[in-house]
């Protein structure tokens, strides 16, 4: 369980996290979503007791992160999978970490097996591919069998097989009753694994919801129509609840009416319909919609380029 209350973090004049309040509960995978630079990593560093909040509080399993007698047993974290000594073997990396807390040596072998690194455990960690490094990071996070697991962009840069493995691992951890908090800047990576969602932008909370509600609340699906009389059909469809826009190729984009109703209206007016298709709002669109005001860096397209 992670409880964050009125959390603010400033670095000099920059406010990285501003007045965040949310709770991450055990037994589910909670996605932590936001554009790059939104303050996800900063928040995670505070959860791990690495950065001190400017104001507000973080507790993990009921206590301040730095107050635990055996932090590795309370919260396991992976911030940067490349944060290993390049010539130390994966095994010794994990062993040194385990020794700080009196975690038995056999547990190192257990987590090495759990992430499938047994055959390369004695090799220098600096020679690992990104996928292997992510697995090593997960192994380190699981070393103390923690009740809470915090992973920063764990699927970033993984291949398809690696992503599938990671999803399985996260789901498995949640089913064991652990609190699993996973950040990403890509909605699609999160939606298939997480059931809860915390969305932040520019350091502020945008949404604290379930994945299902988030998708439902996002901009509704629209319908694409081409017909023999586009202006006429548009005039018929427009109403206070229905918006009609014209796409670049001349097709009408109608939101607020299902495709069947549009077809019926066109038929009733004697307008021949050439195309009628529902355009689903993708998760990514929903996410971009929600965070568009909170993107710190946005590409500026000049008039000349248009």
């Amino acid at each position, binding site marked *: 369980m992670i409880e964050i209350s009125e959390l603010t973090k400033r670095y000099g004049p920059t406010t990285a996290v501003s007045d965040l309040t949310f709770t991450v509960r055990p037994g589910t995978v909670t996605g932590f979503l936001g554009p790059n630079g939104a303050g996800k990593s900063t928040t995670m560093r505070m959860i791990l007791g*690495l*950065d001190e909040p400017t104001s507000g509080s973080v507790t993990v399993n009921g206590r301040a992160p*730095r107050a635990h007698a055996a932090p590795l047993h309370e919260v396991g974290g992976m*911030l940067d999978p490349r944060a290993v*000594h390049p010539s130390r073997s994966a095994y010794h990396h994990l062993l*040194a*970490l385990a*020794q700080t807390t009196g975690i038995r040596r056999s547990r190192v072998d257990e987590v090495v097996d759990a992430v499938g690194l047994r055959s390369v455990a004695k090799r220098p960690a600096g020679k690992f591919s990104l996928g292997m490094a992510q697995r090593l990071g997960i192994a380190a996070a699981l070393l103390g069998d923690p009740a809470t697991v915090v992973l920063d962009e764990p699927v970033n840069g993984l291949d398809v097989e690696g992503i599938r493995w990671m999803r399985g691992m996260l789901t498995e951890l949640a089913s064991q009753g652990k609190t699993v908090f996973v950040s990403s800047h890509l909605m699609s990576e999160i939606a298939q694994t997480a059931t809860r969602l915390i969305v932040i932008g520019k350091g502020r909370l945008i949404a604290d919801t379930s994945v299902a509600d988030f998708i439902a609340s996002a901009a509704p699906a629209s319908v694409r129509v081409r017909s023999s009389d586009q202006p006429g059909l548009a005039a018929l469809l427009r109403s206070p609840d229905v918006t009609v826009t014209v796409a670049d190729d001349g097709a009408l984009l109608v939101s607020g009416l299902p495709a069947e109703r549009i077809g019926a209206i066109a038929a009733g007016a004697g307008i021949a319909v050439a195309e009628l298709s529902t355009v689903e709002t993708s998760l990514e669109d929903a996410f971009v919609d929600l965070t568009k005001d909170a993107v710190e860096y946005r590409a500026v397209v000049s008039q000349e380029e248009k």
Partner: protein
Amino acid sequence: MSTLQVTQARVMKSEWTKLRTQPGALWSLLSAVILVVAFGILYSLLRVARPPHGAAATASFDPTSVSLAGVQLAQVAAGVLGVLLITSEYATGLIRTTLAAVPRRLPTLWGKAAVVTGAVVAVSVPAAVAVFLAGQAILGRHLSVSLGAPGVARAVIGGALYLAVAALLGLALGALLRSTAGGIAALFGLLFAVPILVGFLPGSLADEIGKYLPGTAGLAVTSVHPDPATSLAPWTGFGVFCAYALVLLAAAAVRMRRGDA
């Protein structure tokens, strides 16, 4: 011992595992030994070829420090070892993993200090004794001195201890600056550049201030008969050297304990 809990002893064990599995650190340790032994033998051979001339030169000839001449070079390797032990963690980001496991943080600094002191003493005491014996054998019956002569054993062991404190100095500078290049530069500055600057002061002032500079103060312990005009008493000087290291370690501890990792 089966309860999961962070203890100073466990962190020390963890730091030992890291030291022995970090090739860069092991190379620094090996370099220190090689420099002590090889340069001591080389300088002893040189002094045999050019023995002291005249009564005054013969009287002030110190065969112990001749054989320990390599300590002054090896202090760089020992200091770099200390710097690397902490800055390599900042460079890779590993420090965050380490401090997330040990959020009180200071056990990590003390663990590294204990481990680096132990490792340097463990290799430098035998190296110093070996090079002393080899050096005396080279210097021959007329120039050599025995380990049992007054002040000699103290100088030999002192030379080894000096290297351990140089490593602590490096560790403290590395922890303060969090950068390998910065830490090594500061170490060179403190041990070599500051004495040169002080040397530009008028003679007596330079000697008086010079005595208290870290390197000069620390090396007093390696001299059998230190010259009171330019050097503190052996253990006083070593104490001053230790004080520098402790003050810098305390500053590093404050920096590490407070604020962001």
